[in-house]
């Protein structure tokens, strides 16, 4: 489904991804783990089409198509979903209205009929119950004044609503209490099917206790440095990232007096 081949990406003059390769087949859930600054979030944003990142080499194929040539909205229409680490607040736009606008944009792009307000109300209510989100938050502006956990529930609600084929969750588990973590895990599990896939980008093993991945990858220095089965996550939890090549690809200024 997804083939990432020798991907190099920079922001400004700083290279953050340095030859990342990863293959995710339909029906699989992959976890990408790694220390801070290893390029995890950059990978998520590059896959979703965020602007300031420049892809300098490599390719990404999604169902055989050149993903990097697509606009963010085209990627969404094709079934790619990014769960944001920091969901954006949009004052003045009611959550319910945003959700319906986005769903209908996706449905138009996918050649489906739009959903009317009344019909949508029922669909949204069903998803809202699944993520156990306060009903009041549906009428508030998007993520505006939401707590961290409420924002993440809203992300999972969107994932369930938009029915992606490839869900990329960027640290969706960070800062969540155990109930919210359970909701996230249940949400991803409910999407699991032979035709869909997910990439869980995470710092901790916690989420993986609730949601056992097919493959675990260690991202360090902008590359996948090790891959394995679910047992790799437990090993990382026990021993940390020490021992991996965690060189930071960012050029740090030389210490004063280092003679460089």
């Amino acid at each position: 489904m997804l083939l990432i081949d020798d991907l190099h990406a920079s922001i400004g003059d700083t290279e953050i991804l340095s030859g990342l390769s990863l293959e995710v087949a339909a029906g699989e859930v992959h976890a990408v783990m790694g220390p801070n600054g290893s390029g995890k979030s950059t990978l998520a944003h590059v896959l979703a089409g965020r602007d300031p990142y420049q892809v300098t080499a490599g390719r990404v194929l999604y169902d055989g198509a050149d993903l990097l040539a697509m606009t963010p909205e085209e990627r969404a229409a094709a079934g790619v979903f990014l769960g944001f680490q920091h969901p954006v607040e949009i004052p003045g736009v009611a959550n319910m209205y945003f959700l319906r606008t986005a769903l209908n944009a996706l449905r138009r792009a996918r050649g489906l009929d739009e959903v009317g307000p009344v019909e949508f109300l029922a669909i949204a209510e069903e998803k809202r119950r699944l993520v156990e989100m306060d009903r009041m938050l549906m009428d508030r502006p998007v993520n505006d004044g939401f707590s961290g956990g409420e924002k993440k529930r809203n992300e999972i609600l969107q994932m369930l609503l938009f029915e992606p084929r490839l869900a990329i969750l960027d640290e969706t588990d960070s800062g969540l209490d155990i109930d919210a973590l359970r909701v996230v895990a249940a949400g991803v599990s409910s999407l699991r099917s032979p035709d869909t896939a997910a990439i869980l980008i995470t710092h901790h093993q916690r989420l993986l206790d609730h949601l056992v991945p097919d493959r675990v990858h260690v991202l360090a220095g902008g590359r996948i440095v090790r891959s394995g089965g679910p047992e790799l996550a437990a090993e990382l939890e026990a021993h940390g990232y020490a021992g991996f090549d965690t060189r930071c690809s960012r050029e740090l200024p030389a210490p004063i007096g280092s003679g460089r």
Partner: protein
Amino acid sequence: MTLAARTVSAHPSEGLQLPLAGWPSDPDWLAVARRGAAAWVTANGFPSAKHEDWRYTRIDPALAIPFATDTDTGRRTATGGSWPDVSLRDLLGPGLGGIRLVVVDGHFAPELSDHGYLPSGARLDSLHDALAVAPHRLEPLWSWHSNGYPHALRALSDALATDGILIDLPTEAVVDDPIEIVLLTVPGRAPHWSHPRIVVLAGAGSKATVVETHLGVPGQPSVTNALTQVVVDDGAQVAHYVIQDENLDSFHFSSLDAHLGHSSRFSSRLLAVGGRIGRHEVHTVLHGENAEVELHGLFLTGSGQHHDNAILVDHAALGCRSHQIYKGVIDGDGHGVFNGHIVVRPGAVGTDAHQTNKNLLLSDRAEVDTRPRLEIFADDVACTHGAAVGQLDPDALFYLRSRGVPHQEARALLVSGFVQEVLDCFADGPIRQYAERLVAAHLEPIMSAGRRGTDSASDSDSDSARDVSASRSRGGTAK
């Protein structure tokens, strides 16, 4: 014809031909007031960039258009008038469900108006008739600036305004439906000025909503110099709206003066979308204790347009509250101005005054000047003011696009979210619906202009919510 072809003298008042003879029907006090006002204009001239409050708004192009027109000689009626009645009716569109009074080129047009129910004792009249029938009600309104005018346009209204509307509400009178006043500017034989004047006298404990809609028939430049005076007596409540949708060749100057009595409430809401140069002044004096004023404004300034908002909130009594939010959306090479001034006078203890101006620049040629000012001469007050100039938040834009919302639709959604805070202050029902329709219609070209690719820079611009105070800002800040 082009306005630029006309010569404007260096001293605009030089050679100014004001019809100073007055009108035979004028009562003596009015004739005196007119002569005094005209003399003030001749002596002081018109505001220029040297005047602090007019630093960003040029009046010269409007001065190229003559004051004297056939409308000055008396009001036109349907029988003797020259405007095509039927098409004007089409232009008016559906009303807001209550009384609708139509003023054409500054003159009341009864044949286009719809009268409705009024509480007993309430008077609703053309200003022309009121000057003849009840001049004592209007005399005080002509002496508000006996110590000197803030600028010539205000004086011109005293000198030249002959018609408009008087709304005179007795004590405890309540008018539930909005009173709609449509001020139309129609092309005449030549470009011309009009000076419509609206007076609202809200007796103690009375309650009313007044909606002024300024519409222009496209085709010719014109100048509107409108003045609205509102006296909100003790305990009265007046909600006032201005919808400025003049044609894009025209000049629109309007002033709203409100005097608030004890425990009275007044709100002013502005939606400005039209005109080539538009300036809307709001001047409120809170001279009764415990009075409250709310000022909300939204200006959508497109290419070739200039919108100036000059506001003075004068806290002159104990324990009054004022709250203002003005927002501007500026596109193309449009220019927005916010000049907000709060004065808390000695003795106005316990004043609670807040002022916010936020502006969204949609193009790298758009410009806004914002000057929030606060002058406090009293103790124990709570006052805040602030201004912000920004572009569409690139993070929010990406968030929406990543959810499948196409780029232009995402921009439109963010802009509508930005303006919603002001529209939410418009009364639920026909007024809000009218405002929302107008906003949607004016955002559509803004959005399709963006489609042509002028905004690629703003996509990657992280400078999205820079706080500024009293500064000049331009879009597309250097990165």
